[in-house]
């Protein structure tokens, strides 16, 4: 089965600034992929390219289409939530539902209404009267009512409090996700999504640093807690990152030999956020 999203040497320049530098990645159907990177790493540029919102160099296919040239057709099968602030203030909730129902053939009004019925939001309210959290719920209701193959979320919970963030991701996983759907999320708050993801793509300075499933991460990476007397021996195995906490050292290895490393101390699989820090800072922290 061909990948849902396939990019080859994807490059985006803004004048002399290179936001995406020959990025290669592929995303398969049924996955929840986190596109993770620090601010200004090129996450948003990558998403904009995937969604057909910007021109680019290199090759990119999304659902078998060229996004920039075929955005309209693509949006029939893909939807996105850019962030919470983008529903215009003058729009009423019922108008938003009517409009999407009017222009989107795959929108199911009953599903949107069912989702909103669980909230405090009524149809005559204008977006400018709603809190950020409520606006996110409206946007999510509109988006989840669309039978789309691909859902793209760009920092969807930016500016939300912890309750609203939790509600957002719970709804996403419980009410939306199934085998036929694929979700691509960008965020710089890794902890928030790491339990959701099946795959991760790390991006830094416009380049893809890591593109892997979480299952593979468990095989490819290992962290070892090393006591000070064994640290020189452990360093000989070429860790790519070291971290020192409370008199102990954490050494991170790529493609490790578990039998060898076990001799230095306790072995475990690094969390996504630890791996993110390890991969992107490089050297000693």
């Amino acid at each position, binding site marked *: 089965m061909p990948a849902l999203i396939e990019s080859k040497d994807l490059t985006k320049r803004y004048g002399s600034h290179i936001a995406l530098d020959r990025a290669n990645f592929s995303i398969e159907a049924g996955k929840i992929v986190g596109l993770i990177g620090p601010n200004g790493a090129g996450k948003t540029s990558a998403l*904009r390219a995937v969604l057909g919102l910007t021109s680019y160099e290199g090759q990119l296919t999304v659902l078998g289409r060229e996004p920039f040239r075929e955005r309209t057709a693509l949006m029939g099968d893909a939807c996105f939530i850019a962030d919470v602030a983008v529903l215009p203030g003058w729009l009423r909730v019922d108008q938003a539902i009517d409009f999407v129902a009017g222009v989107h053939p795959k929108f199911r009004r009953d599903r949107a209404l069912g989702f909103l019925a669980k909230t405090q939001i009524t149809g005559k309210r204008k977006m400018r009267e709603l809190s950020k959290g409520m606006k996110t719920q409206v946007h999510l209701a509109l988006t989840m009512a669309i039978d789309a193959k691909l859902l793209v979320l760009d920092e969807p919970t930016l500016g939300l409090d912890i309750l609203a963030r939790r509600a957002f991701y719970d709804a996403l996983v419980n009410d939306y996700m199934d085998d036929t759907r694929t979700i691509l999320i960008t965020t710089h708050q890794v902890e928030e999504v790491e339990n959701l993801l099946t795959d991760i793509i790390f991006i830094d300075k416009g380049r893809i640093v890591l593109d892997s499933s979480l299952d593979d991460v468990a095989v490819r990476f290992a962290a070892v807690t090393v006591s000070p007397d064994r640290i020189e021996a452990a360093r000989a195995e070429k860790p790519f990152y070291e971290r020192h906490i409370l008199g102990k050292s954490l050494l991170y290895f790529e493609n490790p030999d578990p039998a060898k490393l076990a001799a230095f101390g306790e072995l475990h699989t690094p969390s996504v956020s630890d791996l993110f820090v390890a991969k992107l800072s490089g050297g000693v922290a």
Partner: protein
Amino acid sequence: MKTYSWLIRREFWEFRATWLIPAVVGAVLLISALFGRIDMTAFDSHLAALNLGTIYLLGLAVLFYAVMSIYTSWYLMDCLYNDRRDRSILFWKSLPVSDSQTVLSKLLMGLAVIPLVFMVAADLTSLLMAFVISIRARTFSAVLWNPQTWFQVQVLWLYVIATTAIWYLPIAGWLMLVSAWAKRAVMLWTLLPPLVLYLIEKWFLNTHVVQNVLGQRLVGYAAVAYHGNEQWINDNMSEAATVPVSVWRFINPAGFFSSLEVWIGLAVGVAMIVGTIQLRMRRSEI
């Protein structure tokens, strides 16, 4: 087609002034008819009455048209800028609506739908005012209730809407182009480039091509769309003192559509709309 009807509806939701402004103008006129002084003695002669009836309807039409022109210009400057400023463009672009559909729906709104709303508002106002005045004067005079005059003004409205949409397309296209491009100060960016071009030409070449072309586009409409040269006036208007002038003899569609200026303007306008669509594809939020 269904998408366009939703896009137009969307414009009414966002730009509520589209019906609020004509409603307010109509209400003010109606109040003046309710409480103003009425003098029907001017309607004494039959002929004067017929001409006065025409002036009454035309006056209202001109007033509504003038307000509409200002509002439409403002609308066209705003329509592709607002959603970039509040970032809601990212929501609209997440739907299967193409950028050309968006731009064309807004052009249709500005050049046809808004003028038609004002035309209906002018008609309603003229009927309601005529009714109020007739009740207060206790006579339903033919001055205010002449179906033929009323019908002719409708023809004129539709002719004006159709021909100004074509004549002013390059201006509308320019306003939309700036609206889709500017990061701020849309009105300034609308006026600045023609002004700079005019000054550069004046200082360095001491010619007035820009001024002439723009000036002709802004004020030259009437000369192209209506009969009006001296010969025609001599032949036709000498009898105007005795017979009300018919709109059919006044409008000049054949002259309008055979004018090279009209077709050049149309071509420039279409080019600007194509440019606007391209900008809309490439520019997202500010």
